[in-house]
């Protein structure tokens, strides 16, 4: 019985409206894709069905690897998540700290109408979540140590909604911490300044804005159905096609469209790339970077890459410091102590 419970919890995300792969959202995703193919692309229903359920995508080696990674990562999460700091712990610590700041007055805006407080909190937590995801994602691409683990996600050569789970466990930990910090900060600040009227506006227990994001096809981001928005809208919201550009192997598409729901962050920080009509995209990475389906490679190569990177940095530091240390000792003789940094020998 216990085993059944565990199996149930591995697949619990499919019945949880807080998760993108909730079956209701998946059904809507299929519907949106079909309607778009028939209405916009003028495909026959039969052809549309064929394209949505394309066996070459759903059962590719890359997708099969996604399904295995899904199960492995869920099991891993069960063990690791109790060890991670929760947003409540961060919120509580920050809530204490806010009391200690003399010029901040608790309940300063407590007189605000309840409806306004709830709307403001709901919007703020969504926007802050989205912005911090953008920043984290950007760093994942820009910093070599983080790229070593994030490229697991980009090694997918075909994409299905399950590809959202194709992440290295270390990335899962980092994203969990990001969420804890972002949400904990917003929660503590709101409760401190607005008092106990603070609440989340929800549908099916989910932040209404996340709900809107999911029912409008968030799952299509990881798919081969490249729904585009109008140009002006792609400056505000990331379309599925824009996220697919983010996964494209083409050089000019690298480090573009880091955003999740909002495109404004990419627009503001110069990483926006609009979708291109008729452009056939190829997903994945070069063979020298990652393998699309070999699990051992997917889970363990990042450690090797990180170690190589650190060794390279250490060697460079060593080379830059050695002549300096040699000069110092030559100039001042034996009495002068060698600077502490110069004594470290990474080799």
């Amino acid at each position, binding site marked *: 019985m216990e085993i059944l419970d565990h199996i149930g919890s591995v697949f619990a995300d499919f019945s949880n409206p807080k998760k993108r792969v909730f079956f209701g959202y998946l059904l809507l995703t299929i519907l949106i894709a079909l309607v778009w193919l028939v209405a916009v692309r003028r495909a026959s229903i039969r052809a549309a069905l064929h394209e949505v359920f394309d066996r070459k995508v759903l059962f590719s080696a890359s997708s099969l690897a996604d399904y295995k990674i899904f199960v492995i990562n869920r099991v891993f999460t069960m063990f690791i998540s109790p060890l991670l700091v929760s947003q409540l712990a961060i*919120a509580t610590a920050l809530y204490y700290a806010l009391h*200690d700041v003399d010029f901040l007055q608790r309940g300063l805006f407590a007189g605000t109408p309840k409806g306004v407080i709830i709307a403001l909190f709901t919007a703020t*937590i969504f926007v802050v979540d989205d912005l911090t995801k953008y920043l984290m994602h950007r760093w994942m691409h820009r910093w070599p140590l983080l790229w070593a683990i994030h490229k697991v*996600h980009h090694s997918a050569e075909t994409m299905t909604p399950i590809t959202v789970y194709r992440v290295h466990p270390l990335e899962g930990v980092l994203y969990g911490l990001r969420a804890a910090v972002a*949400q904990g900060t917003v929660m503590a600040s709101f409760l401190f300044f607005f008092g106990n009227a*603070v609440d989340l506006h929800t549908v099916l227990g989910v932040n209404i804005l996340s709900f809107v994001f999911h029912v409008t096809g968030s799952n299509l981001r990881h798919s081969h159905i490249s729904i585009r928005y109008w140009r002006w809208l792609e400056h505000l919201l990331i379309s599925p096609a824009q996220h697919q550009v983010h996964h494209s192997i083409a050089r000019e598409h690298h480090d573009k469209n880091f955003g999740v729901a909002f495109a404004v962050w990419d627009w503001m920080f110069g990483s926006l790339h609009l979708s291109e009509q008729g452009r056939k995209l190829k997903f994945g990475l070069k063979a020298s970077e990652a393998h699309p389906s070999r699990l051992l490679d997917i889970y363990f190569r990042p450690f090797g890459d990180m170690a190589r990177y650190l060794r390279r940095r250490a060697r460079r530091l060593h080379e830059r410091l050695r002549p300096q240390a040699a000069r110092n000792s030559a100039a001042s003789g034996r009495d002068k102590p060698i600077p502490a940094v110069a004594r470290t020998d990474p080799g």
Partner: protein
Amino acid sequence: MLKSKLNLTTAIVLSTLLSGAALADQAYGPFPVTVKGYEGDKTNSVSYSGQIARHVLHDSLKKAAGKGDGGHNAAEVEALMLAYFNGSDEDLAIIAPASKDGFPVKQATVNEISKGKNISGKFYNGAMTAWPGNKSGVDVALQMINLAAASNQGYDPVNGMDWGQLISKFTLGAMAYNQAVDNYLDEKLEAGTKPNDKPYKEGAHYTGKEHSWDEAFGYFGAAAHSVSLSPEQNYAVSKQKDLAAADANGDDVIDLKTEMVFGPAYYAAGADKGGNKNTQYMVTIFNAFRDGRALIASANGEALTDAQRAELKNYADIIETNWEKTLAEATFKYAGSVYKDIDKIKSGEDSDKALRNYVKHWGELKGFSMALQSGKNNLGAAAIDMNWLIGFGPAMPDGKMVSDIDAGGNFVRDREMTLDDYQVNMLKVQKLLIDTFGIESRANDATADLAALAEKLGTTESAESD
């Protein structure tokens, strides 16, 4: 073989459940007289009137603490308070709980309940580091009585003391809790002490173990029928507001010896009634007492076997753990009250009243935190932290708090503490109590809103990335 074992197990489990169900709503007593060779006419061996007398002394002492007029009648008030604390040759009037409209009480004097009782002889006398001056428990109480008598209606607005609350809450621990868990449910359960095959004392109609156990129950302060009442009813009985619930025998008058709910039981019911409503301290403690007593009765006047004493110690353990939690819950609740009171003081509205409530709640907070430190367990670092966070007095609006007391009993106010910082201390006290005692009810939880929001937002594990 396996099957027969299973059957046996099922039978044992079923019979346990059934016997438990049969006892579930049963009152504490009557239990038969089992002393071998007893020839008197008593038929009920339950007796704990001495403990009820002490509860009444305590309630009256608390009321007496408010009789000072600011110094003129100090000697008179102190003498009155000491009479209730140390006991008196005269028959003392019951100041509380006294008869009132709609709630007539059978006894009017302490001797009508039990003669020759006092509080001081049954008061925690170890070191009490929660109070300034390195005093023993009894000396702290005596100093509080002295200062209460010299105050105006038990209130000290400069140092932030509410003497009635401080004395009362401290006594709930230092007398009732301490005697029960550190004496009657502790060494008195050993084989060689107050054995079950002898009367408690020459000619008594109860055995050594029966009476020791009854005395511990008496200190808990539940009515004999409390288990059949809801937490709300037990609470109302203690407040003298529900005659029907209190009057178990239907004679329209409340017998303090069996029908009244006193302090420790009142706070057990209070924790169950408020907060998260997910605790059952009253029923848990009561049932452990009642089932333990039934076990002793079942020995029928023979010495308890080691197995029986082990079972009894198990009940004692349940009682002690849960009783300690009720004290921690009360401390938690008043830390939350103090936190809210500071908001009111800072808002500047009706400042005298706001300060009065603040000091009252602080007295309850401090008293209960001292009660927690009067039990059998040394709380160690948790006590040190708690005493530092709560301090020797509340932070006052001038940013100072009591730091010491001099030889003449005058408070020294040298510790800097803003009201804001003190609020943070209250949050930390609540967290400390959760971490140390695992309490669940958590009335007045100052960070409950955060927990509720976190619950709504869901876990952050595997937050989706792209």
